């Protein structure tokens, strides 16, 4: 049974009772909430995920709840709580899903020190794992989303969870958060793409979450070896351009915005080295998504054969 089939009542009972379980691959998340709109939003974005029994171990137990007090009459708010901790200021009550997503990401980043946790999008095709490091303005999220919608398996749009021993990548499969213009770009290029509600006016502008597809969800416990590291660079009016990047440079760029590279010390260095040594690294400058996808397809073909 999939989350998409749950009724409003089912969702309400789970969110207000033992929790709704989201198994995102490398971790399970238990969600509690008394906010009325969150259940339906989760059903859209996580529709392809299985409905799981609440009697299980979860790495994260997250709660999104309405803030009490008189203020709710004037300006209703929701807050994110994890095990008694409130890591953020409350959000406006009409943005429960962005709050849940940010909160869970924050918590996962705190609790994933048994893996090297890169800040990157990760996809896979024909056994070729592709890491796209998150560099602000690079269009990593847009390209990751576009690749999933073009037949790639999505592992994560946010986290590259690297196994410390063998450097393989594990899925942390969540809704892909697209912002502002990206939402329209993806909508136009892939009219069938399934999005959660659009939330205007968050701290990062308008946010909407792209639902992971059934194939990615079904494979969420399968790790993959990284074979390509692509640094996307979106430039309006640029010609498509693919340039090789040296492994040392790629390594430096990869670890500099990892969540826990420094914390892991030598173990982090070893894991990152293993990953980078197994990869060919490129910078991909593009203006049109179609070109970037075609170029990535070509690289995958080359890598899978070679």
């Amino acid at each position, binding site marked *: 049974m999939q989350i998409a089939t749950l009724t409003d009542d089912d969702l309400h009972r789970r969110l207000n009772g033992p929790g709704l379980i989201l198994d995102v691959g490398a*971790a*399970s998340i*238990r969600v*509690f909430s008394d906010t009325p709109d969150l259940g339906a939003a989760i059903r859209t974005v996580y529709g392809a995920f299985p409905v799981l029994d609440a*009697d*299980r*171990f*979860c*790495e994260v*137990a997250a709660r999104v709840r309405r803030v009490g007090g*008189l203020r709710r009459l004037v300006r209703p708010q929701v807050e994110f709580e994890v*095990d*008694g901790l409130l890591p953020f200021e409350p959000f406006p009550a009409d943005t429960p899903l962005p709050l849940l997503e940010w909160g869970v990401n924050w918590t996962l980043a705190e*609790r*994933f*020190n*048994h893996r090297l946790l890169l800040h990157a999008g990760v996809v896979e095709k024909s056994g070729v794992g592709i890491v796209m490091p998150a560099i602000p303005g690079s269009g990593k999220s847009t390209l990751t989303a576009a690749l999933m919608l073009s037949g790639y398996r999505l592992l994560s749009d946010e986290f590259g969870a690297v196994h410390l021993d063998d450097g393989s990548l594990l899925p942390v499969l969540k809704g892909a958060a697209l912002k502002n213009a990206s939402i329209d770009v993806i909508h136009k290029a892939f009219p069938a793409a399934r999005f959660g509600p659009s939330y205007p006016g968050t701290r990062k502008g308008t946010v909407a979450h792209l639902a992971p597809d059934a194939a990615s969800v079904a494979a969420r416990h399968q790790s993959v070896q990284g074979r390509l590291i692509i640094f996307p660079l979106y430039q309006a009016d640029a010609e498509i351009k693919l340039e090789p990047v040296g492994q040392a440079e790629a390594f430096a760029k990869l670890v500099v915005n990892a969540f826990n590279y*420094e*914390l*892991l*010390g030598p*173990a982090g260095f070893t894991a990152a080295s293993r990953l980078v040594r197994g990869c060919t690294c490129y910078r991909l400058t593009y203006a049109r998504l179609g070109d970037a996808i075609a170029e990535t397809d070509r690289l995958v073909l080359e890598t899978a054969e070679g």
Partner: protein
Amino acid sequence: MLTQPHRCVDWTSAQWDLAIRTARLVKLLGTAYQRMRDTHLLDAIPLAVQQQLESSYRISIHRAGMVRIELDAVRHALADYDGPIVLLKGAAYSLQGLAAGQGRIFEDTDLLIPKSRLDDVEEQLVVAGWETETPDPYDQRYYREWSHELPPMRAPGHAMQLDVHHTIIPVTARFRPDAARLVSMSRPIDGTRFVALHPAHQLLHAVAHVFADSDCVSRLRDMVDMDALARQHATIEPDFWNNVLDEARLATLERPLWYALDVCAGWLETPLPPSVQTWRVEHSPPAPIRWLMRSLLGQCMPPPSPDRSDSIGRRISAKLLMLRYIWLRMPPRLLAYHATKKVVRALRNRFTARADTAA
């Protein structure tokens, strides 16, 4: 998970879920990792649980490294100071290689300096770049006059806060351990420029920290420290327990020690030799007080529930323990001053709340 790790091998995943969330609340995951590893049980527990323990343990290792970096910087900054630098709590456990330092999430670095040299040391630290984290003049005065430490300091770019103490509990408290004795009996930590408290003082410091200088609420982590210290020192230190009892008497910390041993023996099965058992009988508080403290500590000392808010019993007990703490910490005049202030503030808040509701 801590006293009989082999018993959790049969836990259901729902039991694990609650256990890990609860242990996380009181920062005991790293310690649980260490216990499971040392008893070779890690592979017998679910993989996801293992990974969460490992994740926390890795934070602990990283923070221990930060402590060492901080101490190295302190050593350089105090190159011209020839007095003793006593490490307290986690920093000492870690450098001494004690079990109590394993899996611990180090939050700051604590030093003890003889009071006569405090100005000297503070000045040298400031010259070397440490800055106070407490700019407010009233708070500064509070620390300097009524506390047992300088206002916390931090050097720019350093991960760790530095707390420089001149004694182990606030000077206004009813208990007066002799700081000079703490320093004179301290012992060098091999291969370092630092010294650690005498083992008996080390345990008594942990005891005083909870039972003479806190409201005891959710302090299981501290009890686990005391248990680990007691077990380890008792095996390697001749006369450890006799020293503990003697020093407790000198420092007027017998009652706090009694409560600590009561909890350690009752909950954590800390082994106590016959001489200590006899002492416990002789020094027991009167029956009504014993009963009251046991029930208050039983309510408040364990971790809170991760899902439910505190029960009425726990909330009332916590209030009573807070009153006990304030009573212990403040002389009557200062207490009266603070109490009046608090009552006035509470009344004012209540009126404001009523006005809000009316509006």
